């Protein structure tokens, strides 16, 4: 057990346990805050994988943006004064069985596959290389994503105003 292993298990534990809370807790606000810890844990996993830029983007976009949007959604669609902030659930038993079978199948596939598993050295800082890729080979998808974001924001604004 090196320090890397310990930190990995810590982040994996945080991620999985809070993701479990996200999908089981009845109170929507509690689950939104559990999602915060899940996203933090995933950012930590990215950092452990040597993807420092992706980890920072995860923190800024997910934790700073998407999660706030979610909490806005929760707050705007529930009558907080009437204590109606719980979510109903249905089909727990079939869902548990189905997801259990499906997840077991996925785990069996992944454990029985002989993945290419190189022992990599410490990776360099990724920001420079990502910028090079974005501005050379991937410049067209990059620009298209900009357009998609613009259209999505305009669409969201016009849908919400109607």
């Amino acid at each position, binding site marked *: 057990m090196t320090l890397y292993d310990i930190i990995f298990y810590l982040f*994996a534990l945080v991620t999985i346990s809070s993701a479990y809370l996200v999908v089981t807790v009845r109170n929507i606000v509690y689950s939104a805050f559990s999602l915060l810890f899940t996203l933090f844990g995933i950012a930590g996993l990215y950092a452990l994988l040597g993807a420092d830029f992706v980890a920072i983007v995860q923190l800024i976009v997910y934790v700073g943006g998407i999660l706030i949007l979610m909490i806005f959604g929760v707050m705007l669609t529930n009558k907080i004064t009437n204590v109606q902030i719980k979510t*109903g*659930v249905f089909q727990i038993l079939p869902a548990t069985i189905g*997801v259990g079978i499906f997840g077991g199948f996925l785990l069996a596939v992944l454990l029985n596959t002989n993945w290419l598993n190189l022992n990599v050295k410490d990776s360099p800082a990724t920001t420079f290389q990502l910028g090079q890729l974005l501005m050379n080979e991937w410049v067209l998808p990059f620009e298209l994503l900009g357009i998609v974001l613009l259209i999505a924001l305009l669409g969201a604004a016009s*849908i919400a105003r109607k």
Partner: protein
Amino acid sequence: MVTVSLYHYLFVSTILFSLGIFGIVTRKNAVMVLMGIELILNAANINFVAFARYGNFGFQGQLMALFVIVLAAAEAAIALAIVLNIYKVFSSVNVDEIDRLKE
């Protein structure tokens, strides 16, 4: 000696994916369904980044993860706008009560 390998990361992302599907299937509130979708997208992202590190594919996997994050942001914005409209019409966002497309 570091024992954490590709399998550990894939294991975490598989569990996240299954939990996301469980959330989508069992929750009634539409915002909670969206949270399940976010869990699934994050599971896919972990796979991209893990394969990018252990598979000797360069940095393109990380680039895909960035693209997924951007599209997830766009998706969340649109979906929440739709959810707000649904709330205006139905006065609730339970997905089992939404059974009309017309107002």
